[in-house]
């Protein structure tokens, strides 16, 4: 596999820096409005918690046209005297450049991994460039378990509204937990810490011309770490608040990107996940506290209408994927009124496993297959929202835990159907 060729000025900068202990990577694309805050928080975190470590902030940009790179280069250094008792010993270097390769977060990360390898970094962190809630403590929580705890991978643990992160809560978390046996609550959180050793391992994988380079990097990093026996932890970071997503981004596209990445990984690691039974908690760092969360508007009537439209129009496709028995159960749900609608967790588990098997057996083109899951997913999401509307956060979390247990208990069905 060929290495990335950096621009001359990046090479020169790397030559001047020589080596580093910590690399903080910030992938970006047109984030000029928010990246300044992220850079300042990272600088403060490095100054406060790692004053004697050599650190580099790397902005790997996807060709922004709004001056994102200029913002990174020109963001004034934090006045440490206002927040710190001691001055930082080591200066913090900054590198900002447009990455090469297929446009996507994965290509941006690849450049960060390459720089970590070149500078022989001990610990790396990647954080999103649109974060509004990042604090200097995030850097400590993502780096320290690697530098001092001997962990290779630190996943984030956020406090989120009970209705947020529904793809994570109803598909990605239960599925990865049941498959790989590790309770990593936010496998596609987006902000991770990892060791230099793991960064080098990532670079040995030949995935940089695939969808991983485009959109599947988060789940790929988490799964690769879990499936290859790296030591995993998670850190509580508080609330995750970021810039509003592009309103034109389509739910079925999002679902396709996330679910296809998870299913693709199942192909490669079938021998690893098949014998695993149950799951174990991973070490969690950080002091957990409750956060005031903004109200989330939901329209369950619209979701259920889309579910019923799916039932009416995608009958043949669902029948082919789910089989007659489960399809009949789905059909029964279609006859329920909004008030009595409840998607049983056992059925949902089998739906996801059936889709994974159909993906494996290539029953339909991948994009059609996963996009046909959208109405079912909306039905499940509406059902969860209706059930959890009067619940407090911990009760809603207990519902997700029940779903995870169902995924674990029904894993035999997946293993035996996987040929």
């Amino acid at each position, binding site marked *: 596999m060929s290495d990335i060729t950096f621009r001359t000025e990046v090479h020169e900068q790397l030559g001047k820096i020589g080596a580093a202990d910590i690399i903080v990577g910030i992938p970006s694309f047109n984030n000029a409005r928010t990246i300044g805050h992220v850079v300042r928080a990272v600088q403060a975190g490095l100054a406060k918690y790692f004053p004697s470590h050599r650190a580099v902030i790397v902005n790997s940009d996807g060709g922004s046209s709004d001056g994102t790179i200029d913002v990174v280069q020109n963001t004034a250094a934090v006045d440490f005297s206002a927040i710190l008792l001691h001055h930082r010993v080591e200066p913090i270097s900054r590198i900002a450049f447009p990455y090469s390769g297929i446009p996507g977060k994965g290509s941006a990360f690849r450049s960060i991994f390459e720089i970590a390898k070149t500078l022989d970094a001990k610990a790396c962190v990647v954080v999103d460039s649109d974060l509004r809630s990042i604090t200097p403590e995030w850097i400590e929580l993502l780096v320290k378990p690697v530098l001092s705890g001997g962990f290779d991978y630190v996943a984030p643990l956020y406090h*989120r509204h009970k*209705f*947020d*992160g*529904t*793809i*994570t809560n109803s598909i990605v978390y239960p599925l990865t937990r049941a498959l790989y046996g590790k309770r990593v609550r936010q496998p*596609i959180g987006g902000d991770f810490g990892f060791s230099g050793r793991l960064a080098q391992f990532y670079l040995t994988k030949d995935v940089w011309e695939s969808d991983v380079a485009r959109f599947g990097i988060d789940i790929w990093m988490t799964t690769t770490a879990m499936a290859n026996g790296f030591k995993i932890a998670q850190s509580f970071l508080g609330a995750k608040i970021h810039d509003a*997503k592009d309103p034109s981004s*389509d*739910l*079925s596209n*999002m*679902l396709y990107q*996330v679910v296809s990445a998870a299913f693709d990984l199942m192909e490669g690691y079938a021998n690893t996940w098949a014998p695993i039974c149950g799951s174990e908690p991973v070490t969690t760092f950080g002091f957990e506290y409750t956060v005031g969360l903004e109200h*989330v*508007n*939901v*329209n369950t*009537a*619209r*979701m259920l*209408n*889309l579910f019923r*439209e*799916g039932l*009416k*129009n*995608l009958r043949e*496709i669902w029948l082919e994927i789910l089989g007659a028995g489960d399809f009949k159960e789905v059909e029964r749900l279609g006859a329920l009124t909004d008030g009595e609608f409840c998607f049983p967790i056992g059925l949902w588990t089998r739906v996801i496993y059936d889709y994974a098997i159909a993906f494996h057996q*290539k*029953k*339909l*083109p991948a*994009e*059609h297959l996963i*996009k*046909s899951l*959208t*109405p079912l997913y909306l039905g499940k*999401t509406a059902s969860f929202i209706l059930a959890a509307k009067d619940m407090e956060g911990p009760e809603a979390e207990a519902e997700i835990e029940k779903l995870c247990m169902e995924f674990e208990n029904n894993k035999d069905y997946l293993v035996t159907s996987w040929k």
Partner: protein
Amino acid sequence: MMDFLNLILEPLQEVFLTFKVFLPNLLAMIVIVIVGIVLARIVRIILIKSLTAINFDSWSDRMGFTTLMRKGDLWAKPSATLGAIVFWLLVIVTLMIGLSALNIPAIGGLVEQFFGYVPRVFSAAMILIIGYVLAGFISQGVLIAAVNSGYHYSKLLAKAIRTLLMVLILAMAMEQLQIAPSIVLAAFSIIFGGIVVALSISFGVGGIDAARRMIEQETLEKGAAETKDDIEHV
């Protein structure tokens, strides 16, 4: 008397001489046909076994070919059908080669015409096969996208797109086979244009009420959608 006998024997002798010259050609044809049929049988057996080994029948089920065959009252397995098609193609080719071995100018011309037409048949068959798969793929994509967008007539839209594509593909295949190309082109234009005009007229005149209802329903739904979701799915 001798002259009379000569008159009878000379044509017979000529027929005999012509037959003597023709006999090796006839034998060559018979041998070519027999060997060709035997080879075609062997090819059919090997092809069916190979297709069974690579699960061609299940693939055909998934791609909808089996359903298409059943609709056409073909009840054999797709692999066996493909084997039979290849077998008969080889038999026809063998027959043509055999006939050309007879060295009869009229048949030679016919054989030449046949072999000149074969590439057109082949490309028409390719257009039909690829077109059928592509039309299925596109209409399925349209169906799923329309359902996910909450469009009420998703199935109708997908079926209409599939039909239009199949009409287009059929016209392309017939044009390739040069079956009355001008008529095909005219028929295609009339059908395609007719569908568009019929849709416009039926929607504009006959479906005023339906159109009003649809627009009202869409407006109502937009109003309902204003209670939009703020959920972050990932």
